[in-house]
Structures are given as C-alpha cells and as structure tokens.
C-alpha cells in the first residue's frame, strides 16, 4: 500500500473521530454519551498499543506472562465498588482535576507534593507516549510498500504529523472549559468508539489467524507443541516465576488506579457512581475478549516466521504474508485507535497536571492577580494547550532519541513501576488519617530513586552501551548493590525486582515518617475529609476548619479574576442562600473560604487556589488538637441536628394536631355555652310564669275572681308540663347528639305508625277544629324504630297544629315510595315558615349558631331532636321551599 493511501486513511479516520467528539460535545446531556457502556469502554483506554501489539510479542517470547498485565485490573475491578467509589466521591467533593491534585489535597493541599506527583507522572508517562508513537511509526513502515523507507528528518516523518494531529485533537477537545474538573464528553465518546474499533479488529484478526490460516486452536497447539521450547511458554515452572507473576500483577493492579489516563477516565470523567456497577463486570469481560486470541496469534506467528520477524507485529505480518492487505489495514487502524486514545487521554491528564500543579502555582499566580478576568481564563487555556503540544513533542523526541531501540513491553513495565510509586501515599492515605505530607514526599522520592537505580539506569545502559560492569558487579563493585539483584535478590525479573524494592522502601519510609512527623493541622483536616469521606459529605463546606480574619469582598475580587463578574456573583449568591446568610455579609467564614477554594480548584488546581485565597485572608494558626476537636464536634452536631430536626418535625406535627383539637374544643365549648344559655332561657320562661302566678295567688289581700284564679292555676299546670317536656327533650337531645341513643329497629308499617301519631293528637286537633288527613293509606313495611319515628311525627304534627288557624286549618300527612327510600311529608295551610328561616329551624333552639334574638315560632328542641332521629335512621329532613301558603316538612327513610 502506498504511503499516500495510508496517510489518507489515517486522516479520514481522524476526521471521523473529530466528528464523533464534536457531536458528543454538542449533545452533552444525551444518553448516548452518558451511559455505563461509554464509561466502561472509556476505561479500555488501558489497552494501548502495548496490548494491541506488545502482548503478542510477549506471548511469543515468554509465554503466558502477558496475562499478568490484565489479571491485576481484573482483581481490582470488584474493589472499584468501594475504593473507586470513594475516590470518585472525594474528587467530586473537592473538584479534583488530576491525580496530582488528588494526592496533594489529601496531604493538606501541599504544593510541592502536587508538583512531585506531576513529575513522577511525566517521567512515567512520557516514554509510554513515545512508545505509542513508535508503534505508529513501525506499523506505518510495515504497511507501506516502500520498505526502504526510513525517516531521515522530522519534516518527512509521518509520525511527527500524526503526533501533531493528536495534539490538535487533545488541545481542541481538552480545553473547551477553563475548569479542568468539567467532563470532556467529546474525548470520552471518541475513546469509547476507538475501544470498540480496536477490540473488533483484533478479534477479526484473531479469528482469521486461528480459523482461516489454521484449523482452529487445537491445530495450532498440536503444531507448536512439536517445537521443543513450548513448555516454558505455557506454564509457571518455579516459585521464582510465581513471585514474578505476583509482583507484575501487583504492578498492573496499581496501574489501573494510578495511571494518569486511568484516573482521568475512571474518576474525573465519571458521570454517575452507579455506572461502576456495570463497569466491574464489563471491563474484565472486555479484557478477556482482548486476550482470547493473543496466544494463538503468537504461536501462529512463530510457526509461520520462526524468529525472522518482530513478534510484536505478527498481527500485521500474517495477513500481509497472505496478501490480505485490507485485513492488515483493519489491524493497523485498530492499533492506531489504541494509540490515539492512549495518547490523547494521557496528554490531557498530564497537561492538566503540568498547568495546575507545576506552571500556575510556581510561576503564573502573580501574573493572574494583576490580570483582567477575561484574559486569565484565556491564559489558563493557553497554558494547557501549550502543555499538550509540549508533552507530545517531548514524547516524539524521546521516541526519536531512545525508543527506537526499546521494546513496547519493557517501556510499558518501566512506566508502570514508576507510576506505582504513587501507590503508598494514594492508597494508604485514603484509609489512614495519620499519613503526612512529608512522609508522602520522602516515600515517593525514595521509591522513584530506587526504580531509577534498579530499572531505568541499567536498562538504558543495556540498551545503549551493552552489558557493562555496573550491571554485572554493582555500584563501586559492591555486590549487594547490583541493580538487578539488590541485596542479593537475584531471582526476579528486572521489573518485578524493581517493583518489589521500590515499593518496600516507599511504604517503609511513608509509614516511619508519618509516625515521626504528625503533620500540621491543615494536613490533618484534609486527611479526615478523605479518610472519613462518608461523614464529611454531609458536612460539606463546614468540613474545613479555619480561623482568622477574611472579608467577603477580598475573596470576591479573587473569584472575579478567574470566573468573571457574573459567575463569581452567582456563585456567592448560591453560597449565601445555601447557608441562609444575608447577601451583604461582610466577614467571611471557614465555609466561604473552603467554597471559594473549591471554585478555583477546577481552573487553576488545588494548590494555587489555596495560595490565592490565602493571599487575601489573614489566617490564624490552630493546634492539631483543636482541629480534631472541632471536627468531632461538627460531626456530632450533624447527627444531633438530624435528630433535632426529626424531633421538631414530630413536635410541630403534634402541635398542629393539638391546635386543631383545641380549635374544635373551643368551638364545642362555645356551642355548649350557647346551648346552656338557651336551655336556661327556655327553662326560665315557664318558671317565670309559675312564679308570677303563684305570687299573685298567694296574695291574701287580693280578692281575685274565681275564674281568674282558675286560669292562673291552669297556667301553672301548663308551665309545669312544659318544664317537664323541656327537660325530657333536653335529655333526649343530649343522648342523640352524643350518640348514646340506640335505635330499636324493627320491621314496621309506616301507615300504621302515621295513624298512631295522628290519633295521639286527635283531641287537640278536635279542640281547634283542625282536620288531619291521611292521604296515602296503603301499607308499607320497612325497618325503623317506631317509638322514635312516632316522636318525629308527633313533633311535626303538633308544630303544624300550633301554626294552623282554628276551624280552617287542615293538615295532610302523606308518603310516597322511591327506589331506595320513602318520603313522608306533613303539610299544613298555616302561616308557613319564612324562607330565611329554613336553614336553621332544625338547629337546637334557633340561635345557637346565629347569634340573634329573633325567635321563630315553634322553636325549641323539637325539630333538632326530629332531625337527629331521622339522621340516625340515615334519612334526611327539610322544609319544602317555594310554597304559596302553609308549611310542608318532609323526611325520608331509606329501605336499607
């Protein structure tokens, strides 16, 4: 294939990636971008060119050792649900934008520690990036027809242009936002896409080699087993090998957490914690699929080429050998995908660290303070863009100068070992609050130096000088200091050996110095926030203990410099509203300091944020004991507040119930007063009559005519009867109203009940010469308490009798049957009931609800009792409206 065709394919493929990233960035909220699958696929940035090409190389030369690199992450995956979740939570809480930020914030926002972590990451990652460029360059060479093609200068080295394109891509989509803790959805979407491509194409070549070139796995195995050196390729043959396995797995276990690109995709780009639940099984599955065919491709390559070709590129040589250049192109693109995603994400992560933990805190802060807000944001972005280009260019030169001689596998392992030096302060610091900044720094430095001495130095010497006395005999000829066999430990592979010693020293120094130096109060404060992150999430901004003098205005000015007037004001408004503070608060407290530091952290890194805020406030020193006390108290307060809140909610609920009950009582009490008042009034009327008549009758001086005497005596009798009736009514009514009256319900004929009622009043009617007519004479049986219904009818009839004129008066009792009830009516041709009285003639006495002194005739308890009885029978009672003359009272009785 011609160079030009290859370049066109590369450019086209990059254009597709640009397009995907562009669309994802545009539709940031879409579920196509925010789902657990994209998250898991982005984690597969772990599989770089090293996996794609390097694994086959190792498998061909040293057997199944390549698996260790994937077993570590597989073991780590279940732990994600606790460890990674904690890391994600802390990072979100502190607006962490890189692993350097993460570690330095844990140790009291230590500026030097952040820079040190950045340095280690650079040393560890730059060769790794150059390794990717090397893969591009070498595969390009293999694919190209022009076999004599060897780049003589940068200008015609296609790898250089590829590197530049990648830098442009990373710079374009990596610096959309000044706040580096914001998600990079475009980059993540394209990485996820590339993860699909690389896996798919690798599986295709795997199937092709195994089932097309050979007759399946058994065929390859049978053929390879005839070659004598098979056994060491398929088994672990000794305890020493076992240790090698163990340490390499430990290495990759740490790498999956600590590699800057893994931290970027797994922690910083995580949208939702629940995506982890999918990732813990899908990611190991992805790795498994990737490794299924590795060993078979390796054997197939060995069978086809022996040792004549570089085993790392068997996947290309095998199809090319058969003339299947299309298939080879697919493999090339898959490898290219692995390179692009690794380079872009690593560069993005490194550039954030370089700008936020190296350049800004160590050089640009003063400049920022003097600058205009708009320019600051541009500056920050530019610093990051320049970092991206610098990193890629440095990696390119590293490749030009060194990597050409080195294998993918060895550089990968060196990178891992260097990055692993972050592990003690990272992991132990997450669970042990005593770990201090000084100890972290010392541990890291010692560990890194150990790696340099035991791995990097002899390795480079081997590569460029060949075996020399240093490696053979040790420093100054001291045998114990031999770089590959420190203190006589000579059975491990160099990377496992370097890993063992560096981590041992690192952990040892970290622990010892943590115990010696307690660290200052600020360190301990952050340590508590990390270790006890669950509790501190609820504390939020109050988690930072801070004492001193600070003014809101000063802090606001700093915020405006980096966020601009609008965003700074909006952030402060949110802060004041959240903590219920007045908008014109003058003095800043610890919460505002913490809040502001976090606001700035995303843009300029934690260390710079702290320095900037510290420059405008006057902080007082606090003792460590005091910090711990305050933290303890605030934690207790939260628990107490929660309980108090619950209790107060309960109380307010109770008190509102009480209030309601009280209101009801007040109403009832007033009704009772009015009732008593009216009862007293009603009782007084006959008593007054009796008293006055008696007084007159008793006057012996008075010769009262006999008929008048008779009349007074009759009056006394009448009033006494009235008193008796009244008292009975009151008792009845009270029983009905309090529900203590039980109905004696039986099957009765309504017609006969009506007749009984009429006949009991016949003598009074006869006296007034009023006719009582029973209209409906047919029998009808239904269930009711006859005595009570008799009381109702008698009541209604005697009212009617009272209001009818003598002689002309006529009362009609009727009933009609409906579907579910009967309606009984008592109508008269008397003076009628005024419409306005209709609503309250059934009230007990008439004025208990309406505070007036107008007394409708026929008042008293009669109708109130009547109503109660009817309602007790589940019926209704009312006065018919719209009558021209007379009154008609109607009640219903239901059949059931």
């Amino acid at each position, binding site marked *: 294939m011609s160079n030009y065709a290859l370049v066109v394919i590369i450019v086209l493929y990059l254009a597709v990636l640009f397009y995907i990233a562009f669309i994802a960035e545009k539709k940031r909220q879409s579920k196509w971008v925010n789902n657990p699958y994209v998250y898991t696929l982005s984690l597969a940035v772990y599989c770089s060119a090293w996996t794609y090409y390097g694994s086959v190389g190792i498998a061909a030369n040293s057997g199944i050792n390549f698996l260790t690199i994937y077993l570590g992450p597989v073991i780590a995956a279940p732990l994600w649900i606790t460890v990674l979740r904690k890391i994600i939570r802390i990072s979100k809480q502190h607006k962490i934008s890189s692993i350097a930020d993460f570690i330095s914030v844990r140790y009291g926002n230590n500026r030097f520690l952040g820079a040190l972590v950045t340095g280690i990451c650079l040393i560890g990652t730059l060769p790794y990036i150059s390794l990717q460029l090397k893969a591009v360059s070498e595969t390009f060479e293999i694919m190209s027809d022009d076999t004599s093609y060897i780049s003589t200068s940068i200008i015609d080295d296609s790898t250089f242009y590829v590197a530049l394109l990648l830098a442009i891509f990373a710079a374009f989509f990596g610096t959309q936002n000044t706040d580096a803790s914001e998600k990079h959805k475009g980059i993540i979407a394209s990485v996820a896409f590339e993860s699909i491509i690389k896996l798919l194409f690798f599986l295709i070549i795997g199937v092709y080699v195994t089932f097309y070139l050979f007759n399946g796995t058994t065929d390859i195995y049978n053929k390879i087993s005839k070659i004598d050196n098979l056994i060491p390729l398929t088994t672990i043959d000794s305890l020493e090998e076992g240790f090698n396995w163990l340490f390499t797995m430990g290495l990759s276990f740490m790498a999956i957490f600590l590699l800057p690109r893994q931290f970027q995709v797994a922690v910083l780009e995580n949208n939702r914690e629940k995506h982890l639940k999918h990732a813990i099984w899908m990611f190991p599955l992805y790795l498994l699929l990737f490794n299924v065919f590795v060993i078979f491709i390796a054997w197939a390559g060995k069978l086809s080429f022996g040792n004549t070709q570089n085993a790392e590129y068997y996947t290309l040589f095998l199809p090319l050998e058969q003339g299947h250049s299309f298939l080879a192109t697919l493999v090339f693109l898959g490898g290219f995908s692995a390179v692009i995603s690794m380079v872009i994400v690593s560069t993005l992560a490194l550039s954030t660290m370089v700008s936020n933990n190296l350049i800004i805190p160590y050089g640009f802060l003063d400049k920022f303070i003097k600058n205009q807000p708009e320019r600051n944001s541009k500056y920050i972005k530019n610093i990051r863009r320049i970092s991206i280009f610098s990193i890629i260019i440095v990696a390119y030169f590293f490749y030009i100068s060194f990597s050409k001689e080195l294998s993918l596998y060895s550089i990968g392992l060196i990178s891992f070992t260097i990055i692993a030096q972050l592990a003690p302060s990272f992991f132990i610091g997450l669970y042990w609050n005593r770990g201090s900044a000084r100890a972290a720094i010392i541990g890291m430095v010692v560990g890194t130096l150990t790696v340099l001495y035991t791995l990097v130095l002899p390795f480079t010497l081997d590569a460029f000088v060949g075996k020399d006395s240093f490696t053979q005999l040790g420093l100054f000829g001291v045998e114990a200091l031999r770089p590959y066999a420190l203190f006589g430990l000579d059975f491990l592979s160099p990377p496992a050996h370097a890993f063992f010693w560096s981590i041992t020293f690192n952990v040892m120094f970290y622990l010892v110095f943590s115990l010696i130096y307690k660290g200052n109060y600020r360190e301990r404060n952050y340590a508590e926030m990390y270790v006890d992150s669950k509790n501190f999430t609820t504390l939020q901004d109050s988690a930072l203990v801070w004492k001193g003098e600070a003014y809101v205005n000063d802090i606001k000015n700093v915020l405006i410099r980096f966020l601009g007037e609008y965003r700074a004001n909006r952030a402060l408004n949110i802060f004041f509203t959240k903590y219920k503070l007045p908008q014109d608060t003058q003095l800043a407290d610890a919460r505002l300091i913490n809040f502001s530091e976090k606001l700035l952290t995303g843009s300029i890194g934690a260390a710079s944020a702290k320095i900037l805020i510290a420059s405008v406030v006057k902080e007082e020193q606090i003792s460590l004991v005091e910090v711990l006390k305050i933290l303890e108290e605030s934690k207790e307060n939260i628990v107490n507040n929660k309980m108090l809140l619950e209790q107060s909610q309960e109380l307010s609920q109770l008190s509102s119930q009480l209030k309601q009950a009280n209101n009801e009582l007040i109403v009832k009490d007033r009704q009772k007063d009015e009732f008593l008042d009216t009862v007293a009034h009603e009782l007084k009327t006959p008593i*007054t009559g009796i008293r006055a008549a008696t007084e*007159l009758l008793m006057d012996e001086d008075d010769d009262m005519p006999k008929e008048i005497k008779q*009349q007074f005596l009759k009056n006394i009798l009448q009033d006494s009867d009235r008193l008796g009736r009244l008292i009975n009514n009151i008792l009845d009514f009270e029983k009905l109203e309090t529900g203590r009256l039980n109905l004696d319900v039986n099957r009765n004929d309504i017609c006969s009940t009506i007749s009984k009622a009429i006949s009991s009043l016949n003598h009074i009617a006869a006296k007034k010469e009023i006719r009582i007519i029973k209209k409906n004479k047919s029998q009808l049986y239904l269930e009711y308490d006859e005595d009570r219904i008799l009381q109702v009818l008698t009541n209604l009839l005697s009212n009617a009798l009272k209001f009818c004129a003598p002689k002309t008066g006529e009362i009609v009792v009727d009933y009609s049957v409906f579907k579910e009830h009967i309606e009984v009516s008592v109508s008269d041709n008397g003076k009628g009931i005024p419409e306005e009285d209709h609503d309250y003639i059934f009230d007990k006495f008439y004025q208990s609800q309406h505070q007036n002194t107008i007394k409708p005739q026929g008042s008293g308890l009669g109708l109130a009792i009547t109503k109660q009885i009817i309602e007790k029978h589940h019926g209704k009672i009312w006065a018919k409206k719209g009558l021209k003359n007379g009154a008609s009272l109607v009640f219903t009785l239901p059949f059931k």
Partner: protein
Amino acid sequence: MKKKILIVDDEPNIVMSLEYTFKKQDFEVYIARDGSEALEILKTQTPDVILLDIMMPNVDGYQTLSYIKSDKNLKDIKVVFLTAKNKASDIEKGLNLGADKYLTKPFSVKKIVSEIMELVA
C-alpha cells in the same frame, strides 16, 4: 288620669300575670305579642312605660327599643326590659340602647310594680 303601660311579651302566661297585676294598680294595659305588634300599637297610643321582653318572634326587644328611640314622638317613653337574658353583655347592650331599667326573669311581681311605679311617679 290613668297611667298607660304597654306589655310586650310572646309568652301568654307571663303576660296574663303582668296584665292582672298592672290592672290592679289602675294602669291602662296594652298588650303586644312581639315588637311589630308593639310598634303598631304605638302608632295610636303613647304609653307612659313599656315593659319589653327581648327574645320574641319577628321583631325582637332590642330592635323595638332602637325604633322607639329613633322616633322623636316616642323617644321619651320610659322603657323597661323584662327578660330572661341575664348576661352582663346583654344588660349592657340593653342599657346602652337607652332602656331606663333592666329587669330579669323570673321576677317578683311586687318588685316589678315598685320599679315601674318609681319610674312613672
């Protein structure tokens, strides 16, 4: 000249006792069963004293008194409330409306007579 008294009450038994009592005291007695009847009588008669119940149908005692006090021909007539309502607030309201006396039920006939005599003397 005979003194005139208007008794306004809806309870016939009480009215009967009062009517008998004041007739014996040589009063010319007029009787009304509620406020509206009383006002009807007052169109043609000007009694010296009115004995007025409060709780009555149609037009109550308070309304009746207000009307009397608003009519310049009637406003000088002495008015005595005779009622079962004996709460302090009721008494205050009655006196504020311009009643000359406020007597409560049940009453002693002798006491009523002496109170009325005191007013019309």
